[in-house]
């Protein structure tokens, strides 16, 4: 076997996206075992329900905003289930389904989008970094954590999500390069849903595929059918294993489609034809798995119903945040000025309540 350093062309993605299950649900490659296929299916079904539920919550005013990943569940779930326990996940704002798949309680995942606090879960508990909004800035964080783990001799890998649009930012580039130079155990999962708000991929990049960027950093790039959870899972698993084994980072591009608007407050009619989404609806990752496994969403209906009911119950609770919290977490200890400001706000609120 040729080593990848000696044969740079091995870093290039194949001509066509890697596919293991085709649109008809037929196996066209080596599938992961049945147990994995079932958890992928389950994760996607629950993820879709979560997406729908969260969007509904925005309409009910219980969530301020929601960027849905409907249609992208194979990426969200496939890549995340490839993680081992010790591994870390660095999601973007759109990757709530990935975060929930990782085991973070649904309501905690939504804190940011609900508006009661910026990040709602303890990153150390599930090894999930906060949802990241400034595009591609999570890239260097992932590299740093991976590099620190490598320096300590801990065996783990880090999976970081980025959108197609985010690859245009300088931080994506710096993260790719640092990872390669440090030989850091990171997998960059580029979820190419072909839109960055209103901007289509063609205005974002002229690259043959985004996975073609990898060779420019000296790491392998893989191009995967992002609506095929089996392919995403398999390729990301291999890339994570490679990273854990000390062979360095890779880029995996999952080709999918943002079926829903950018967020609930976006209007796709301003920039794309409804027909644009049609081919992608047809290649729905869940339908494909229904066919492959011969069971449909109803297999998980009960579990999903329960989960959504719990989520609704959580979200319908009033989430009062103590205004004191404004000042509590800025530094390890509030500075004298913050203590003064806290006191002033307390006095103001007391006066409002007629206590003054």
């Amino acid at each position, binding site marked *: 076997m040729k080593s990848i350093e000696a044969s740079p062309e091995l870093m290039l993605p194949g001509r066509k996206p890697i596919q293991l299950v085709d649109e008809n649900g037929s196996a066209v490659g080596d599938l992961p075992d049945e147990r994995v296929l079932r958890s992928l299916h389950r994760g996607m079904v629950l993820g879709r329900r979560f997406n729908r539920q969260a969007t509904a919550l925005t309409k009910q005013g219980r969530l301020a905003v929601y960027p849905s990943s409907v249609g992208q569940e194979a990426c969200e779930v496939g890549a995340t289930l490839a993680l081992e326990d010790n591994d870390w996940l660095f999601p973007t704002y759109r990757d709530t389904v990935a975060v929930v798949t990782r085991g973070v309680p649904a309501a905690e995942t939504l804190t940011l989008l609900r508006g009661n606090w*910026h990040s709602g879960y303890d990153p150390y508990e599930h090894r999930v970094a906060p949802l990241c909004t400034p595009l591609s800035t999570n890239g260097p964080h992932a590299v740093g954590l991976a590099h620190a783990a490598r320096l300590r001799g801990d065996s783990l890998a880090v999976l970081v999500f980025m959108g197609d649009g985010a690859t245009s930012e300088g931080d994506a580039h710096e993260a790719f390069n640092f990872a390669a130079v440090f030989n850091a155990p990171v997998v960059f999962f580029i979820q190419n849903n072909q839109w960055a708000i209103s901007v289509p991929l063609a205005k974002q990049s002229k690259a043959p595929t985004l996975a073609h960027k990898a060779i420019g950093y000296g790491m392998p790039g893989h191009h995967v059918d992002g609506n095929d959870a089996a392919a995403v899972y398999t390729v990301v698993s291999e890339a994570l294993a490679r990273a854990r084994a000390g062979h360095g980072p890779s880029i995996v591009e999952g080709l999918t489609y943002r079926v829903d608007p950018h967020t609930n407050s976006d209007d796709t009619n301003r920039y794309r034809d409804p027909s644009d989404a049609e081919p992608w609806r047809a290649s729905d990752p869940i339908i494909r798995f229904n066919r492959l496994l011969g069971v449909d969403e109803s297999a998980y209906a009960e579990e999903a119903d329960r989960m959504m009911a719990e989520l609704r119950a959580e979200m319908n609770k009033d989430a009062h945040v103590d205004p004191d919290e404004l000042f509590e977490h800025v530094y390890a200890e509030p500075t004298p000025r913050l203590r003064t400001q806290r006191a002033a706000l307390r006095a103001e609120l007391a006066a409002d309540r007629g206590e003054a």
Partner: protein
Amino acid sequence: MAQINMAQALNRALRDAMTDDPNVVVFGEDVGPYGGVFTVTDGLTAQFGEDRCFDSPLAESGIVGTAVGMAMYGMRPVVEMQFDAFAYPAFEQITSHVAKMRNRTRGKVALPMVIRIPYGGGIGGVEHHGDSSEAYYTHTPGLTVVTPGTTADAYSLLRAAIESPDPVIFMEPKSRYWTRADLQLPARTDPMNRAVVRRTGQDVTLISYGSTVQTCMETADAAKEEGWDVEVIDLRSLAPLDEDTVCASVRKTGRAVVVHESSVFSGYGAEVVATVTEKCFHWLEAPVLRVGGFDVPYPPKDLEEHQLPHPDRILDTIARLQWEDQ
């Protein structure tokens, strides 16, 4: 008179500038067919074509840096940063190039360009969508920093910013985008570098800009009941600061409060305090105070009501201006 809002006034300013000067080009993230996340560039691509208003790849440093090159070639680019915090990736281009190009080339290369930055909170956005970043720019020599507090100024200041031979950071108070006014456009207001007295009063001067001008006007109404006759100044231009207008007012009233959304510590208000104190020391009955955001990262939606200056807090501050001395 038509009822139009600030976003529409800004849109009209871009439209008129593009009509008047073929060198004006607009670009950024989602400013093309989409018309911008705040609709400020709505319809420009349709009217002027893809060469005059276009989407760029998603990279703010690239956007600003590209605008620098275009301006060097004689164009007048107007670029949009989608939200305040998303201008930070462009900080090096802004401070090291946009601000310095004229100076480093001894005046040979001018950069007539405008960087539009929607800023401030009050819209229930998630983190990174509510920053008030004006002080970073006002401290950078070579930049002109302006912000409209009214719909009429939104039009006029943006026209003036585009016409300026110098680069302008144009801060748009996003919580005021939908503030409507009776307005017949085109119409120009005062010159860009001038502050304006929005309301005259004898007892105390409120000095503000952008989103909090309106807050100060409301405070002035409320203050009447407390017996204070409040003068309100809308700075409009933060850099340069129109010291004359500000000092004339403070010398008259002897008391002043600076109001802005931004965190107070080391913020723009400190400059106003320092300047006013230096120039008006003998007229001051009390120290010039500041009302602004707490010194914390901009809070989540559920807490932003506490962070933003509101009339009660401004009144409380006015009350602290040593009235007992009189």
